């Protein structure tokens, strides 16, 4: 698995350092928006944790669509091809809680995805001001999952925290619509990310995060889902 990530990162670096003979210019694309996430196992784990409460708690949020960002460096080839690599970031989480006059019990889960990989974009409609492109990314996806449960009852309390990580390959395909403004372009992009799921392991001891009902199965992170982002493209000559 690690070999694949090394290849991906090497590919991104290679694409960025391709001979400039046909490269006209380069630039950066900064995007920010929202993405949805499948996170089936995390929702399952959240349900399980809630079932261990001694009182009837409730899930107040369960891995909803949340922030997604990316920063991509690229080189432009033949006016219609952009090749590069970059970093993408997504975050989401969940919370279950119970509170009454005597105290509260809360479980918070925070998941963060850091993706590093290659980027490719191909212009399919090239207007004077508007460009429509197909784009894709291949990434190594590092997930960090933080689970914290705490309770406070009158003046007593306790807190338990666990941190897990996973690594998985992911890729996305989408469309970019850019409005050209000389050296700058503003636009929107949307697409679908497929995450091949990564087994979650405890960051301290490396123990897998097992399914509480089936010890043979390891729970996974899954960032598969739709995304929609605003984008700013800055070109360098």
């Amino acid at each position, binding site marked *: 698995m690690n070999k694949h990530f090394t290849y991906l990162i090497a590919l991104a670096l290679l694409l960025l350092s391709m001979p400039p003979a046909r490269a006209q210019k380069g630039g950066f694309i900064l995007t920010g928006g929202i993405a949805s996430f499948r996170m089936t196992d995390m929702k399952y784990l959240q349900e399980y944790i809630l079932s261990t409460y001694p*009182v009837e708690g409730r899930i107040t949020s369960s891995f909803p669509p949340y922030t997604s960002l990316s920063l991509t460096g690229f080189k432009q080839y033949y006016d219609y091809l952009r090749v590069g690599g970059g970093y993408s970031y997504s975050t989401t989480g969940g*919370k279950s809680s119970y509170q009454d006059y*005597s105290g509260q019990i*809360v479980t918070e889960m925070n998941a963060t995805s850091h993706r590093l990989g290659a980027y490719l974009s191909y212009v399919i409609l090239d207007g004077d001001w508007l460009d429509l492109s197909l784009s894709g990314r291949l990434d190594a996806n590092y997930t960090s999952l933080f689970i914290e449960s705490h309770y406070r009852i*009158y003046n007593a309390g306790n807190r338990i925290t666990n941190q897990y990580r996973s690594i998985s390959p992911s890729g996305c395909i989408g469309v970019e619509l850019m409005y050209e403004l000389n050296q700058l372009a503003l636009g929107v992009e949307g697409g679908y990310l497929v995450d091949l799921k990564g087994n979650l392991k405890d960051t301290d001891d490396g123990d897998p995060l097992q399914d509480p009902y089936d010890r043979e199965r390891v729970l996974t992170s899954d960032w598969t889902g739709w995304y929609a982002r605003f984008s700013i493209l800055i070109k360098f000559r």
Partner: protein
Amino acid sequence: MAILLLAGLSSCFYTDSDMYFVEPVADDPPVFSVGTNLDTLLYPEVFDSLEVEYIAEITGGEFYYFYARLAGSVVFESDSTLGSFWITSFMADSAGIDTLYMNFYYSTNTNSLGDKFGYEALVEELKYAIDFKPGGKK
């Protein structure tokens, strides 16, 4: 601009401030009764020592704890509903009447978080005036 930047930065970290607040629906409180061998005595006297026996009964709840206090000090504690302990003339501050407090703690049945974890309790307090006789002191 700064506000926008701060709002943008905060959205980079997932947060959920919602809390599920509940008004617990209480069950009937437990039926609790307790008796001691001092119940039939008026100003029991202690020349040297006196054994105190107690028996508690609880229905529809859980007994947590019992302790006895005399002259500001805990002289006995237990989590049993049945038991006995000794008080001696040394335990009193001085000769004469002193009060023996016996506190029994048991579940509230409020169904709150505090109730479920045993962090809240109803208390039954018994008080007995004990006559410590100077002649009983060594």
